[in-house]
């Protein structure tokens, strides 16, 4: 089981999908950059060829100006290999095919990414909001555009809480 080495795995992945770029950070981790249309193929390849691939997480990163990066992380215990798949996305509400049918554990991670970044996952069975209250649905809080200071709080739709009064100054202060 543990015969597969990171270089072997990277080689076979390159042979199957030549457009993928692979970068090896250390002996144990691979960085794979793919295009959004290929993500299902690559994840399927990992499910088939990487023994006991544990889907660790999927999350987005806001790179500003409607650029997003989506990172899929898989960990294989027998191969001692960490795979990071990176996808660059662009657009107001970018979309990408879902992989939650290949790895069910990623279903909720995709749900969370959807509500936090507004990234659409095509074919996802259930894209209800996971963590956020109803007032914040469609606001995408983890985007850098979302401001959290009190002056912009009204936009979020949350009830406005007045800041608590500070302790009063002592009398006889200078100014």
């Amino acid at each position: 089981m543990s015969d597969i080495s990171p270089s072997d795995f990277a080689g076979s992945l390159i042979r199957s999908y030549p457009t993928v770029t692979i970068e090896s950070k250390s002996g144990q981790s691979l960085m794979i950059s793919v295009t959004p249309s290929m993500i299902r193929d690559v994840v399927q390849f990992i499910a088939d060829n990487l023994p006991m691939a544990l889907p660790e997480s999927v999350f987005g990163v806001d790179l500003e100006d409607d650029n997003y990066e989506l990172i899929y992380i898989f960990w294989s215990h027998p191969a001692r290999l960490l795979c990071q798949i990176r996808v660059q996305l662009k657009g107001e509400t970018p979309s990408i095919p879902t992989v939650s049918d290949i790895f069910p554990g990623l279903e909720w991670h995709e749900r969370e990414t959807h509500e936090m970044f507004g990234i659409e996952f095509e074919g996802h069975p259930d894209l209800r909001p996971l963590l956020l209250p109803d007032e914040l649905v469609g606001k995408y809080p983890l985007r850098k555009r979302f401001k959290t200071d009190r002056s912009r709080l009204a936009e979020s739709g949350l009830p406005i809480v007045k800041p608590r009064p500070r302790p009063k100054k002592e009398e006889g202060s200078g100014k």
Partner: protein
Amino acid sequence: MSKLGVIKDILQVLRHIVRQVFSRPFTYFYPFEDREYPERTRGRHIHIRENCTACGQCVRACPVVAIRIDKSDRKYEKDAALYFDYSRCIFCGLCVDACRFDALYHTPVVDLSEGSRDELKYDPERIETIEREPLEWRGRRFR
């Protein structure tokens, strides 16, 4: 054999329980019996104004914005009027670490509960002293 083993297990469990009944309880009479607080206990702070230079490092280090230094407050020496908001403080100790002038310390006083939130906002004079009302119960005074 396994059925008899079950009976043995049941008796073993009962033995542990009965032995427990006649042992000393672990808890102590909380408000009336004092426990020993270690030296490093991160309780409420004490501010030593003679050492304070109002540099504001503690304010910068605080992750929850619980400290405020009022530099326009002329009543106090060296312009250091330190306000502490214990309704926000998480007792992380970063302010004490950040202070280079030995002006801010933790004390082992951990029971800070008050009737209202406003009383948890300590003014500069209160943060400099650790006077506490002793607890009274049935005519006896504790701590």
